[in-house]
């Protein structure tokens, strides 16, 4: 491993050089500038604007009544808003259920597909195919499938249970609507995470397993002591991705239930859009956006710590 040795002897020299190099600094700003400018104009400034809207009673389209500064009125109203509370609950419920289920299912499928038997590639493609279908298309097809009287799902359940199960009103039932959406979201997304786990599995050196087998470890022990620990980073990534997906839930609600029945499927992002575009309460919607951002940010702090740790690792 001669290259490794070279790395160690050059480190000191590298540090000396990069610390003093002005040209490098300017160049690094040049590299970062396009992205930073774009982010500033199209993400940061609008968000700051949104914060300022949240302190006013801004309507979507201005009318004869002038937009006035209302201070924290939107925020106090927010605290008393039942719909928003329900939306937060729905998002949390979605996250608590979908994140572990989708992660676990993705891992299970990846383990299943990590076999060298004939035709495995076909199955892999099939399991991945929902991922490439646009979510809006899936939402429309599934809303047809979930139809109470003319839906395939109810028909299926009734057939296999000889009439005992159902018919259920799925998307129109306050207790079943959100689970129905969760089910189809998992159906759509799990293929992608399965592929990521598959990649992770294939990166585990075979030598670890050989050594374990020599030491007499059985299948389950191999899984528990080798596979899972080696997949820790992958699992971390998958959980972050599914959590972010859970918080941004919008399309399925917009297409399938419009937040109903009775706010059973209202999510924060959907509520935000509905308030600003349909009800014209831009000021209030912006307050919701700010509060939601803060809530999610708190959950994201572990990621921050992880990134900072990686930083230290690199230096």
């Amino acid at each position, binding site marked *: 491993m001669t290259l490794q040795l070279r790395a160690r002897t050059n480190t000191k020299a590298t540090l000396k050089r990069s610390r003093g190099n002005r040209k490098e600094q300017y160049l690094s700003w040049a590299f970062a500038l396009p992205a930073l400018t774009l982010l500033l104009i199209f993400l940061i*400034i609008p968000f700051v604007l949104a914060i300022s809207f949240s302190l006013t009673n801004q309507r979507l389209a201005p009318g004869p009544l002038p937009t006035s500064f209302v201070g924290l009125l939107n925020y106090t109203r927010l605290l008393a808003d039942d719909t928003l509370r329900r939306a937060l609950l729905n998002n949390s419920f979605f996250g608590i259920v979908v994140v572990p289920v989708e992660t676990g299912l993705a891992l299970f499928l990846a383990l299943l597909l990590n076999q060298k038997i004939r035709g495995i590639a076909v199955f892999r493609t099939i399991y991945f195919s929902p991922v490439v279908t646009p979510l809006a298309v899936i939402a429309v097809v599934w809303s047809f499938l979930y139809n109470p009287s003319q839906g395939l799902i109810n028909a299926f359940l009734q057939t296999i249970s000889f009439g005992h199960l159902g018919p259920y009103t799925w998307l129109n039932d306050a207790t079943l609507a959100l689970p129905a959406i969760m089910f189809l979201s998992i159906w759509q997304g799990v293929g992608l995470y399965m592929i990521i786990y598959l990649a992770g599995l294939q990166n585990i050196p075979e030598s670890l397993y050989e050594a374990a087998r020599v030491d007499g470890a059985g299948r389950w022990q191999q899984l528990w002591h080798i596979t899972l620990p080696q997949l820790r980073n992958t699992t971390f990534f998958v959980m972050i991705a599914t959590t972010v997906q859970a918080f941004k839930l919008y399309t399925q609600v917009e297409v399938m239930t419009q937040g109903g029945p009775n706010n059973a499927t209202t999510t924060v992002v959907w509520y935000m859009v509905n308030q600003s575009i349909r009800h014209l309460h831009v000021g209030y919607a912006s307050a919701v956006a700010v509060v939601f951002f803060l809530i999610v940010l708190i959950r994201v702090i572990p990621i921050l710590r992880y990134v900072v740790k990686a930083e230290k690792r690199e230096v």
Partner: protein
Amino acid sequence: MALITRKVRASVPAHKKATHTPLLPSSRKYVRLALNYLLMSLLAIFFLFPIVFMIISSLKSNENQLLQDVTTVRALFPYGDLSLQNYDDAFERFPFGLYLFNSLVIVACIVTLGLLVNSLIAYALARMPFPGRKLILILIVVLVVIPFESVAVPLLLLVNQFPWFNGATTWINSYQVQIIPFIADAFSIFLFYQFFIDIPKDIEEAAFVDGASRLRIYWQLVVPLSRPVFITVAIWQFLTHIGDFLWPLMVTRGDTYRPLMVGMRIFFAQAPLHWGDIMAFASMITIFMLIVFLLFQRWFLRSVASAGITG
């Protein structure tokens, strides 16, 4: 039992792909194999049935029959009058080709420009001395959390006042308004960053010693090495933006710049409502996406494996 994970025998090559970890033990091999296939087939049905239902329904030109079949197993089988009539209707009522073209142009621009812009800043953050680097890194992670919907309205107000090269005084109803706001993406930057910090520094140091400029190192050394993460980010962005609906709805009027998803929703809201036509439209989109994926799948799968997400 001793923890085996850290003990790697020096005589065994460090990297051999572990592909053979069967889920079920190999005694009574054939029964296990059959059960394996059975399980996988059941799962395959589970993953396929909505898509099969959609495509089969799109071929049923008799709406009444389609609705009746839905509650029976015939929903998944071609039955009755089959024709491409629904596809004809869909094409006739809507400029599907134009919508598809718009979607592709928009997404292609977002992805290619995005790869360039996001990788540059990630590289700078990962490798170059940067005053305020930690702060910007933290900022990037924070930005990942902002959902687009919360800035949509203020962004609309902003872009309405931007001029463009062809003399227009607003960006509303154009291609650029659907492309430029999405080029810089915090999550892509994060993925690139994770990959770049893993690249062994000695490769670049060797080039430095040879007198190469930083830009050249990036362009001719780092980028080719990072093919996996480039492809992963490209595909992630593609999948994300092909389904964009809210923003295009807000900023386009008329058919000229309208992308596929908005066109689809318009189509679905039209009276008279024919599920056959809807299924035809949905099928066209899905089949197109599936073909694209099938063509690129091997590329994609190999890239994800080495893209550094996994460790």
